[in-house]
């Protein structure tokens, strides 16, 4: 049994001008100790998916349907009290903005200790000692002094390390990281990615990584889910996905990224564009969600939504025209 199973997840929001289908029927699973990346552009529903897992979506206006099974237990049926015992304990989350997601009036030690005191019943002194340990673990120098400092005294990279320390304090089984390095500079991003890889080996938590940066995905993920307009359009292990993307959207996404080193390899070509815009999620889309921007579109695509089909072992894509393995080989 997988650690996390998401079945037909639908997260809709009621808005003054119609229902916004932010996530519309998404299935995936995460095994224990595995790193799964969810990629897509803004508005594709990747963050809403993450928030739905922890039930952080305000209801109303939001509405979550489907099933989210964590260790076999459906989180959508759990009581608020049960959810509180899971959040920050068995499933924890790292947010994008280390600036706004830490409390500015509490020391970082208090904030790391809070989860420990709540979930593990540690005393104030024990919690502080453990907070120092956690700061050491995430590589913050002079942890004893830093534990008494406030978020504004730390740099962006250090704040993100504190966020990671908070998330890992209770040894969670699943860590959801929502754009953990997007707000950081490249050299700091490299430090944090290195830290996350290292900690994964030591702590052994499964990671759901939400990002739009395909470079980061290639670096840390084992399996990748590509989302577009609230639906999953492709899923595969990281190698096959980058080497042999099957869905036209994934192909477009990879083609529209400039390659570093292009001036050396002489592959200086014009960037591939994906024409047009993401469709509005407030209207029901009868056919394929990508039809309005797809270069291979036919009448079939605008009328019937393609099902997610296994195009190669472990490689699914939702496209009528994506090639299957046998055809590729021939």
């Amino acid at each position, binding site marked *: 049994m997988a650690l996390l199973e998401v079945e037909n997840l639908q997260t809709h929001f009621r808005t003054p001008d119609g229902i916004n289908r932010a996530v519309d029927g998404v299935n995936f699973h995460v095994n224990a100790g595995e790193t799964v990346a969810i990629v897509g*552009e*803004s508005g594709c529903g990747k963050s809403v998916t993450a928030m739905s897992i922890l039930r952080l979506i305000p209801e109303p206006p939001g509405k979550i349907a489907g099933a989210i099974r964590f260790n076999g237990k459906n989180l959508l049926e759990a009581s608020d009290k049960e959810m509180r015992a899971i959040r920050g304990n068995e499933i924890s989350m790292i947010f994008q903005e280390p600036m706004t997601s830490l409390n500015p009036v509490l020391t970082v030690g208090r904030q790391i200790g809070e989860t420990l005191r709540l979930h593990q019943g540690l005393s104030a002194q024990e919690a502080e000692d453990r907070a120092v340990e956690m700061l050491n673990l995430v590589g913050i120098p002079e942890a004893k002094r830093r534990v008494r400092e406030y978020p504004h005294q730390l*740099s962006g*990279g*250090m704040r993100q390390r504190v966020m990671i320390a908070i998330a890992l304090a209770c040894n969670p089984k699943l860590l959801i990281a929502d754009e953990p390095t997007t707000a950081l*500079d*490249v*050299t*700091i*991003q*490299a*430090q944090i*990615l*290195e830290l996350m890889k290292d900690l994964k080996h030591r702590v052994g938590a499964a990671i759901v990584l939400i990002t*739009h*940066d*395909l*470079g*980061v*995905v*290639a*670096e840390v993920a084992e399996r990748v889910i590509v989302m577009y307009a609230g639906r999953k359009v492709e899923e595969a292990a*990281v*190698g096959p996905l*980058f080497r042999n993307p099957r869905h036209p959207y994934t192909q*477009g*996404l*990879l083609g*529209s*990224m*400039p*390659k*570093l*080193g*292009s*001036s*050396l*390899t002489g592959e*200086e070509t*014009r*960037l*591939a*564009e*994906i*024409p047009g*815009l993401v469709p509005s999620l407030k209207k029901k889309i009868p056919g394929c969600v990508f039809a309005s921007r797809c270069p291979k579109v036919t009448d079939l695509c605008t009328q019937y939504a393609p099902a997610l089909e296994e195009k190669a072992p472990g490689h699914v894509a939702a496209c009528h025209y994506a090639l299957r393995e046998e055809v590729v080989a021939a």
Partner: protein
Amino acid sequence: MSTPILQVNDLKKHFPIKAGFLGGTTGYVYAVDGVSFDIMKGETLSLVGESGCGKSTVGKALLRLFPLTGGQVILGGDRIDDMPNGTLRPLRRKMQVVFQDPFSSLNPRMRVRDILAEPIRNFGLAKDSADLEQRLEGLMDKVRLPRDAINRWPHEFSGGQRQRIGIARALAGEPDLIICDEAVSALDVSVKAQIVNLLQDLQTELGLAMLFISHDLAIVEHMTHRVAVMYLGKIVEVAPKRSLFGAPKHPYTEALLSAVPVPMPGAQRERIILKGDVPSPINPPKGCRFHTRCPYAFDRCRTEEPQLRPVADALAEGHIAACHLHDRPAAENPLAGAKGAQLLALG
């Protein structure tokens, strides 16, 4: 490509830090501390670096959005750094800007028509209203927006379309140079590609020079002719792009290149992880500003500041770097040779 459209010599911008209710100055933020470069006609020069390195301050200083602390700026033969505002005004036409945030850089209470007509009227470019109309249509065509969108309001457009309006506004004054301050950073991958292609097309079409300020090295490599790398208010390396990406000659550039994640799973590459954070520009380190994080720093770096000088074994002419390592014999210089391909995992 031979005449410089913009020359910058020893540009400095120090922001005073005021404290107390009498507002006494207690120190300075050395945001830009002696930066020199030039941009040729029709050339793109990229300014890269991490947040707080002063790259955006350089852009704003060139536009004279605030007074300079020191240095010279020569735009098309006229020295503009000490020019009174009245004299400068007509010259502003030659140098226009595209900002990062397509949402806050357009006035929400002006229709696209008025946003684009304003610079044309200000600089008195249109002969009569028919000419103005024609210019407006031409601008919409140039940035590939439908002509009938001209009567709409900014909020009716998506981020990418707004950035097109921002570009059209910059083009309205028929400039020689456009400063793009992180102009594509806020956009999604697929939209980013559209705008990058548009900027490149416009450059070939109109022969524009561009100062492209960005932190995204892959886009920079794709767009640019030459690259200048900034660290803590100083330029540490300038080179034609092939030379910079193929054989970086400053340890900071080397670390930057190795830090960018590449979309190739399992790529074998040499990774240099810099320790610590960028020091504060209020109190920059003595000697070489990078020595606190440099993996190769030695005694001389802590005391003597290196100057930008031509590098001997670069891949192309015009490659300059500020690093003491190049005074050492090649065997003791970790930056000797062309290491770019290893850093970028090009096999």
